[in-house]
């Protein structure tokens, strides 16, 4: 007789599983749980490592490729770790008409980091994104989901200083 062994999940913590289970009744098909489940994983761990994707596939009983093709298609799932503050800089039409492309370069220079990379202190990742639906505040950025704009160079300087100070406060 083979005994059923619970797989040891590293990323699908009991909390993450509980969040997934709370949503199960919303969809007639378990595949539809993929996106909300990936959000739950990312919110818990900051990103979605390949191992977490494999765990999720096992947990939902779907082929791993179903998970990976979703993660790799949508821009907001992070396949690599990002900084504590993820800064989206909109570079689309309304923002670029108001100088966004220059601001992006300024911000990257100021932090001395390449786009999508993480600063050595682990605090910042900057990403140019397509229109984020806040053109009335162009040029606009988003810091961990919060819209800030219109911004100029001086405000970006202030923002970086504020976030660094905040990080010092909350780091034990």
């Amino acid at each position: 007789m083979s005994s059923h062994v619970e797989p040891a999940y590293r990323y699908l913590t009991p909390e993450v599983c509980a969040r997934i289970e709370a949503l199960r009744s919303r969809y007639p098909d378990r595949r539809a749980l993929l996106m909300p489940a990936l959000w739950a994983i990312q919110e818990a761990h900051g990103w979605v490592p390949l191992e977490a994707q494999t765990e999720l596939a096992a947990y939902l009983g779907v082929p791993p490729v179903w998970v990976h093709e979703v993660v790799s298609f949508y821009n907001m799932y992070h396949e690599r770790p990002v900084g504590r503050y993820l800064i989206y800089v909109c570079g689309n039409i309304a923002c670029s008409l108001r100088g966004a492309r220059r601001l992006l370069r300024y911000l990257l220079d100021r932090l001395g980091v390449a786009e999508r990379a993480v600063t050595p202190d682990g605090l910042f990742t900057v990403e140019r994104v397509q229109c984020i639906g806040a053109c009335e505040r162009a040029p606009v950025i988003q810091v961990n989901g919060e819209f800030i704009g219109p911004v100029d160079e001086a405000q970006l300087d202030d923002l970086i200083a504020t976030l660094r100070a905040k990080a010092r406060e909350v780091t034990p």
Partner: protein
Amino acid sequence: MNSPSEVRALIASYWEDPAAASLAGYLARGGYEAARKALTEMKPEDVIEEVKRANLRGRGGAGFPAGLKWSFVPRTSPKPKYLVVNADESEPGTFKDKYVMLRSPHLLIEGSIITAYAIDAHVAYIYIRGEYDVCRVRLEEALREAYEAGFLGKGILGTGYDLDIYVHKGAGAYIAGEETGLLESLEGKRAYPRIKPPFPATVGLFRCPTVINNVETIAYVPFIIRHGGAWFASLGTERNGGFKLYCVSGHVQRPGVYELPMGTPLRTIIETYAGGVWRGRRLKAVIPGGSSAPVLRADEVDVPADFDALAKAGSMLGSAGIIVMDEMTCMVRALEVIADFYADESCGQCTPCREGAPWLLEMVQDILHGRADPSYPDLMLQIAQNILGRTICALGDAAALPVLSFVRKFRPEFDYHIEHKRCDVEERYGEVSNPD
């Protein structure tokens, strides 16, 4: 809600009062009375007839009559039916649905209840783009309030009608706003648009009959039920009923969302409401319906901003993202940004779009960086023509139309860049308003 005789704003009338975002504030303004009326006094078919009479056209971009779309749902189908609210709002230059969700979330919920009732759906999903997490949080709060007050769940408002509304969070993909791409996404897949027919009204979400409407479309439904379809129709122009949320951005003094009667002249929206072109500069060009819409020159903006008049003017109302460009705008750079978007967002299913959109981007970049020869503009027109109408969804058209209109209407700027390897606008003004 305003009494029909003195109407200045419909949806936006809720935005003036921050309290209107809460259930108490919404109820104080007559909230959920329209849902009560629909569920207790009207048959689903009556609701559909009223919305047809209203000339309510879809506000997501295509302008399809909402009542007609609902009437395509097979009433006798034994399958569950679904309502899906499109809150993906990803068309560049568009930001109105965000305000609906943040400031009048109950209007969207009430409209969803009435719409779901009309099509006999008992589950509705609101698909919100991942970047709008602030909206998702607000909407989840409002849904909790609505459930607690008995406006959602089992036996709504003491009737035998049940409805659950769930919010589904997207994760960053423009193509997920295309209705069948959205359905695929909701099902947990890549947002690859489906070949139509079959249309979602018969084979939609989880292969069941489905109605998909934009947030703004749904948010107007309670007004129609409250005051009647004929009244709503009378607020707009022929075949374009009601009010419209116009999003104005770019080089204007007061960018923002303006709710005005359908068919308000484009020039009035820009000059009177958005304060005109900033910094005392002259108007150069306007994109009237989100970045997919063909650009208009300054001398072409005396046109009513509704679906039919803008189509006649060679552009489209689309998502009503009005993007204004001043005289110091380099049109080649502007097109580069737009071409970059469509090349980036093409899902890759159809060859003309997958290959063509990046070619167009590369060619604009070559022009900008002095690497192009004089054959480029015509070649770009040809490539764009070969994408047009040859793809599963309209993203291909969206990639082609800006190229066709920019190159045709501002050809001398493209030719100058190619010939002189410099920017004509920059030389004339010393700088451009859209530097790269």
